[in-house]
């Protein structure tokens, strides 16, 4: 099975984490968006608060300037100085008194001062508006004295006193002497400024509709902050509510500590607020413009709700998506697992089948077969092997057991280890061995050790097949014995043959020698008879002498031919590479010189070379070509072809003539010794030439044959083996 992508089972924690992190991101996004909106709102409210604070601070400053302006106007009023001087001196001129009274009345009514009081340097009230007020308490009294002695306008801070028990500001304006040399103050006008009428409404007013917005005016007093005005949410607080400076989350405390700008904190009620703090120029007051965070953030709440819903929707959707993904992946995982399992089961089945086949094959073998792993332990063996082990060592091999534990003989172990180790090194080892001491009882076997390799070509074990060679060895031995006997017989026969051959040789020698001598005597003495006694012989006597002579010459020729024929049979042949074309050509030229004057058209083809004995093959060509010349000698035009043809890988040489030919019905006699198909009168000859040809070609292991028709010429064919013979057969 090939390598497959390993698909892990998806784990729930993975999906939960993915979903969790996704949710975190969504929530963070929501929070971020909400804080963005909050910031927007903060900025907006800050701008508004800042604008309101600027506006109010300006208004308060302007209001203060107006008050001081009133005072300065009074200081410069010479009429007032004269009137007061008049009053103090006790003149009480009605005009001045009225003027003063109406002036004071006018200030009080039109400029909204609560009380105006005129006091002299003894702090005695000279005149008051409304009238009836006759006492100046402290601290106003101290301010009067100070204003007169320092001759300058003094404005007190918010305060209340036993005489005027509500919060108010005293503005003390010195009244100067109206003399060129003396402008010292001799009296003072005390303006009691009540913030209730103008300042508090001013402070409390808000340019836009708001339920919680308010403006505070505070100042520091020792270790605490003092609220100067009435509060929107608490009543009766002006100059009464004090808070320690320790709680810096309170904007008023911050303001008292000198902080200016926007600030988020908790107000005196402990309610979260957004504020803007300003210092009022020319005073030690701080103004805190504030609005409840709750009011600002209320509209955001809806948006927050929307964001939360969207976030929740996204989270839930993500939950569904991850769930869906998880289900999908899980399905795929189980599907894959199912397929893998199916494949594995199929592989298992195949494996079992293969295993059974292998076991069946092993068992079907009569030869012992077994295999070992790298530690010489059995991985398989057949019963033939188990039987052998039982027979030799009386042990039973078992899977996983080392083969050496099943061998009881140390030398066998060593030999087996040597062969197995060679196979484990990757070599195919075939070794023959035998056991048994007696030749007849000896068991021969051949062990083939074949390395077993895995897919990566590593040797993981060795397979061993043992072949029992005993029968073969026995047969070989038997064969060798038979061969020896045969050889002995051949030797015997050969020596017999050699003896026969020697006899034959001696015979032919004596034929040659012994027959020729008397023949020569017959011929010679007949000739001498004619030479020495010819005059005494008649014609018939001389004719008889001729017959004796020619017969003896013929007999000599017959003897010569017979000897030549027997010589061909006895001659040793040395096969060499021979140039057939050269031999045929030279033979033809040799023979042609003996038949001068004839018109012979010869055609010698380019004959291929062959293996053969040069001397005897030359004799073949000589006989065939001389026959062709002989049997065309009565032609007017002679055509002889010396050629060859290839047939089934064999080279067939031939000599073709257009001579008299022969009748194929006598073909069986053609190659016989002393057999002739033509009379001596027609064509001379002894019928030995073709017999010699037949004998030579036969001894070469070739074939010779002929085709002819009377009067149409004949063709003589012969073929020779194309390979070099080891030695040419001896006849």
């Amino acid at each position, binding site marked *: 099975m090939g390598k497959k992508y390993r698909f892990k089972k998806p784990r729930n924690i993975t999906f939960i984490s993915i979903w969790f992190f996704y949710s975190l991101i969504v929530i963070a996004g929501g929070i971020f968006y909400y804080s963005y909106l909050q910031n927007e709102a903060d900025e907006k409210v800050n701008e508004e608060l800042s604008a309101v604070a600027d506006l109010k601070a300006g208004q308060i400053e302007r209001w203060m300037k107006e008050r001081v302006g009133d005072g300065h106007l009074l200081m410069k009023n010479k009429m007032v100085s004269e009137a007061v001087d008049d009053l103090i001196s006790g003149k009480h001129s009605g005009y001045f008194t009225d003027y003063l009274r109406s002036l004071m009345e006018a200030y009080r009514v039109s400029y909204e001062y609560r009380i105006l009081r005129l006091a002299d340097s003894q702090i005695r009230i000279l005149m008051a508006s409304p009238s009836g007020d006759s006492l100046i308490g402290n601290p106003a009294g101290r301010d009067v004295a100070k204003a007169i002695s320092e001759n300058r306008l003094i404005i007190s801070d918010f305060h209340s006193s036993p005489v005027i028990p509500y919060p108010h500001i005293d503005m003390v304006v010195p009244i100067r002497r109206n003399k060129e040399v003396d402008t010292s103050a001799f009296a003072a006008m005390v303006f009691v400024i009540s913030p209730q009428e103008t300042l508090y409404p001013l402070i409390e007013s808000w340019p836009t509709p708001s339920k919680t917005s308010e403006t505070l005016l505070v100042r520091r007093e020792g270790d605490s902050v003092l609220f100067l005005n009435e509060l929107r949410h608490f009543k009766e607080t002006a100059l009464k509510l004090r808070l320690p400076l320790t709680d810096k989350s309170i904007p008023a405390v911050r303001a008292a500590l000198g902080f200016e700008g926007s600030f988020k904190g908790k107000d005196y009620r402990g309610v979260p607020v957004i504020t803007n703090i300003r210092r009022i120029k020319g005073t030690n007051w701080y103004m805190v413009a504030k609005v409840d965070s709750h009011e600002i953030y209320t509209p955001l709440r809806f948006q927050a709700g929307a964001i939360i819903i969207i976030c929740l929707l996204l989270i839930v959707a993500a939950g569904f998506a991850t769930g869906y993904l998880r289900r999908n992946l899980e399905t795929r995982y189980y599907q894959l697992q199912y397929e893998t399992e199916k494949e594995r089961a199929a592989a298992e089945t195949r494996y079992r089948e293969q295993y059974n086949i292998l076991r069946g094959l092993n068992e079907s073998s009569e030869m012992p077969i077994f295999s070992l792993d790298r530690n010489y332990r059995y991985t398989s063996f057949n019963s033939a092997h188990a039987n052998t082990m039982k027979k030799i060592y009386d042990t039973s091999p078992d899977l996983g057991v080392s083969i050496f534990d099943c061998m009881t003989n140390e030398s066998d172990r060593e030999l087996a280890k040597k062969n197995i180790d060679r196979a484990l090194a990757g070599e195919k080892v075939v070794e023959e061995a035998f056991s048994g001491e007696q030749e007849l009882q000896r068991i021969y076997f051949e062990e083939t050790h074949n390395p077993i390799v895995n897919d990566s070509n590593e040797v993981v074990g060795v397979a061993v097949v043992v072949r029992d060679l005993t029968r073969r060895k026995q047969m070989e031995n038997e064969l060798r014995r038979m061969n020896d006997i045969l050889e002995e017989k051949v030797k015997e026969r050969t020596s017999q043959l050699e003896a026969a051959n020697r006899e034959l040789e001696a015979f032919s*020698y004596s034929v*040659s*020698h*012994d027959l*020729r*001598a008397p*023949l*020569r*005597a017959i*011929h*010679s*003495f*007949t*000739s*001498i008879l004619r030479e020495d006694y010819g005059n005494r012989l008649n014609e018939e006597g001389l004719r008889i002498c001729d017959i004796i*002579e020619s017969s*003896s*010459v013929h007999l*000599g020729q017959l003897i*010569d031919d017979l*000897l030549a024929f027997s*010589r061909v049979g006895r001659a040793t042949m040395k096969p060499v590479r021979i140039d057939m074309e050269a031999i045929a050509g030279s033979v033809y030229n040799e023979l042609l010189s003996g038949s001068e004057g004839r018109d012979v058209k010869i055609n010698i083809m380019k004959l291929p070379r062959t293996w053969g004995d040069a001397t005897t093959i030359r004799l073949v060509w000589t006989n065939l070509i001389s026959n062709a010349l002989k049997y065309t000698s009565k032609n007017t035009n002679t055509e002889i072809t010396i050629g060859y043809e290839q047939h089934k890988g064999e080279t067939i040489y031939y000599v073709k003539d257009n001579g008299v030919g022969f009748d194929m019905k006598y073909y069986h006699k053609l190659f016989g010794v002393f057999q002739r198909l033509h009379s001596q009168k027609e064509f001379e000859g002894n019928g030995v030439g073709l017999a010699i040809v037949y004998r030579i070609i036969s001894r070469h292991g070739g074939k010779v044959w002929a085709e002819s028709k009377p009067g149409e010429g004949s063709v003589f064919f012969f073929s020779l083996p194309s390979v070099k013979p080891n030695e040419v057969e001896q006849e």
Partner: protein
Amino acid sequence: MGTTNNLSAVDILIVEDNPKDAELTLRALRKNNLANNVLIAEDGEEALDFFFYRNKYKGRCPDSPPKVVLLDLKLPKVSGLEVLREVKSNSKIKNIPVVVVTSSREEPDMIEAYNMGVNSYVVKPVDFEQFMNAMSSLGLYWLLVNDTPR
């Protein structure tokens, strides 16, 4: 017969057991007047006796070796090739020209004879005329034309 006696100088030694062939050879030589000092040894042993001054050739004149020896191969007692070997292996007489004159044209005989140093090899023709011509030529050549060291 114009053969010399045993002890006089010999020009031609004919070693031949067949008296008919010997006669024919002599006839050929006589026709050419070459048969004056001819000796015929009838077998190989007699030929060797002649060469080594033995038995009846004990008192043979030692100064004039034959000008040619005509040696048949098929001889009783000692064969012609045996005689040839004895002659050609003896340093004193190996220069005497020896011509093998035989009835058979046997290749092995011819090769052996030449290997042993034969001076010529002639196959006796069956035909009378050819035989006479061959023998005449031999006699004329070896006696008149050829020269040998003294």
